[in-house]
């Protein structure tokens, strides 16, 4: 009796010791930048080295929320996030399952699936940009030679063709992230569950729905949260491949433009806060939808 209470108390104390350092690190790093962003969002602050900052209340927020460019960026981001995350999850799970099985050449597969994630984004974006080049791109050359398309296409010239290409490149790049996490998650499932299932006569498909999917769901959800947060903040791939095109901006590209290009720290910070709120809404949606408490 006493031993149990004693153990409980020890565990509680230990918990504080183990959690505190991480929380402290988080707070120290993020505190100042967060406060700065919030404060500047209420000020008119042009980084031209001349105009002093002044308080303007919600002006910056109303500027952003009434800017058609902002809403076009939001829509692009949402379309991109939705399509790419779904594709990445499905493909990631499929690849993880293939990588999980025993077969010759398993090592090559496991290494291969990580390569897209390992190459720096600026480099892979450039490589893909070159591959879809309208005259010399290998994709155009192959597709035209096989007569799948009537003539070579300038893929990145307009949103209708550019967005699918960008999504394809992101799926190529980020599926490894999902696959790796899901692979580790699949390892947590005890093998004897499958054996028992086989003995009971369950087909592989049934085993997937009844055993694999439920048990890999917790890992899948965590991977989904992070992948979605990354997708909502997507910047590099759009910036490198179609940066500058007015109708192909994302929220982060718009943010960058205000802060860096237009030197507007006021509007830029307000944009950052709005993005933060959008992302928080997503996280809340996830928790509700999955009905998994992360407690």
């Amino acid at each position, binding site marked *: 009796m006493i031993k149990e209470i004693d153990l409980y108390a020890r565990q509680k104390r230990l918990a504080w010791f183990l959690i505190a350092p991480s929380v402290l690190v988080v707070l120290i790093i993020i505190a100042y930048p967060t406060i*700065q962003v919030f404060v500047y969002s209420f000020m008119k602050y042009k980084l031209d080295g001349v105009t002093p900052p002044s308080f303007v209340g919600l002006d910056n927020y109303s500027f952003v929320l009434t800017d058609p460019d902002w809403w076009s960026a939001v829509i692009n981001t949402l379309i991109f996030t939705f399509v790419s995350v779904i594709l990445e999850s499905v493909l990631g799970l499929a690849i993880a399952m293939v990588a999980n099985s025993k077969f010759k050449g398993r090592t090559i*597969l496991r290494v291969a699936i990580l390569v897209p994630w390992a190459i720096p984004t600026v480099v892979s974006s450039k490589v*893909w940009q070159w591959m879809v080049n309208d005259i010399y791109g290998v994709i155009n050359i192959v597709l035209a030679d096989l007569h799948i398309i009537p003539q070579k296409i300038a893929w990145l010239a307009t949103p209708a063709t550019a967005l699918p290409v960008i999504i394809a490149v992101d799926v*190529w790049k980020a599926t490894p992230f999902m696959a790796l996490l899901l692979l580790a998650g699949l*390892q947590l499932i005890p093998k004897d569950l499958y054996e028992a299932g086989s003995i009971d006569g369950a087909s592989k498909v049934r085993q997937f729905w009844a055993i694999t999917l439920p048990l890999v769901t917790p890992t899948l959800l965590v991977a989904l949260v992070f992948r979605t947060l990354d997708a909502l903040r997507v910047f590099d791939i759009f910036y490198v491949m179609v940066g500058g095109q007015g109708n192909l901006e994302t929220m982060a590209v718009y943010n960058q433009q205000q802060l860096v290009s237009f030197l507007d720290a006021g509007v830029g910070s307000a944009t950052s806060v709005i993005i933060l709120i959008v992302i928080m809404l997503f996280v809340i949606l996830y928790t509700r939808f999955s009905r998994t408490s992360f407690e």
Partner: protein
Amino acid sequence: MSTATKTAAPSKAPTTEGATKKADTKATVLRILFYVLVIVIVVFNLFPFFWALLSSFRPSNELFSTKLIPNALTLDHYVEVFKDPRFVQSLINSVIVAGSTVLIALGLGSVCAYALGRLPFRFKGPVLYLILTMTMFPQIAILSGLFVMLRTLDLFNTRQGLVLTYLIFTMPFTIWVMTQYFRSLPKELEEAAYVDGASPLKVFWEILLPLTMPGLVSTGLLAFIAAWNEFLFALTFTITDQMKTVPVVISQFTGASSFEQPWGAIMAASMVVTIPLVIMVMIFQYRIVEGLTAGAVKG
């Protein structure tokens, strides 16, 4: 266990010759399809990488020709890259920065995850969400705030300063994933140990942590890659060649004029930078599988 399989085997024995042949062909077809799938996955993932690899060996004037196979191969770009002293120094810096980031993130993160996943603690939810908020800001939004902070703490243009900022995107995800891992381990493992009088720390170190090896390896690899390839913070927070990391140095490669992208050199540098990552993955990937089997034997 073994008796179960022994009894199972006979019941699976086919009854007629015809059925055997059918089952065999079906199995072979599935097998072939499976291998085709594997090949498709491998090709799709590696094709751009091989294309970039090929480009790194192409002579400069051939880089933009429509020919898929080049006339000649050259090592010029690699020589160019290694002759640049900034590049070699940046490799060292990247190793130090990415390595330290992973060690700290895993070190602090895994113990925190253990506590959040298996110890009684009243504020688990709030802590997890607080940590998650770190990743909700776009990088550009916190850039100038971090810049000011690093200068004030005198950490500007240092590797330590960079490591500190890299924890922003490595710790939240490490903690969340590892918490999930710890939570999914069966309770019985601990209970037996506690009955034997082990302390919570001992339980963590000797029993639970080894079982979460797949999770540690996965998050460690992903965190390393993220830190290795990070560009914006590295660009902004380092100013001297002594401290710059690889992505920044690659961005400084120029051709004869500021318009030219020295494509060959960039590809060569990227290969030099990616191949160690690939080797690391090869070394560590089997660990992802090993984790659970090791634990099962013990149990």
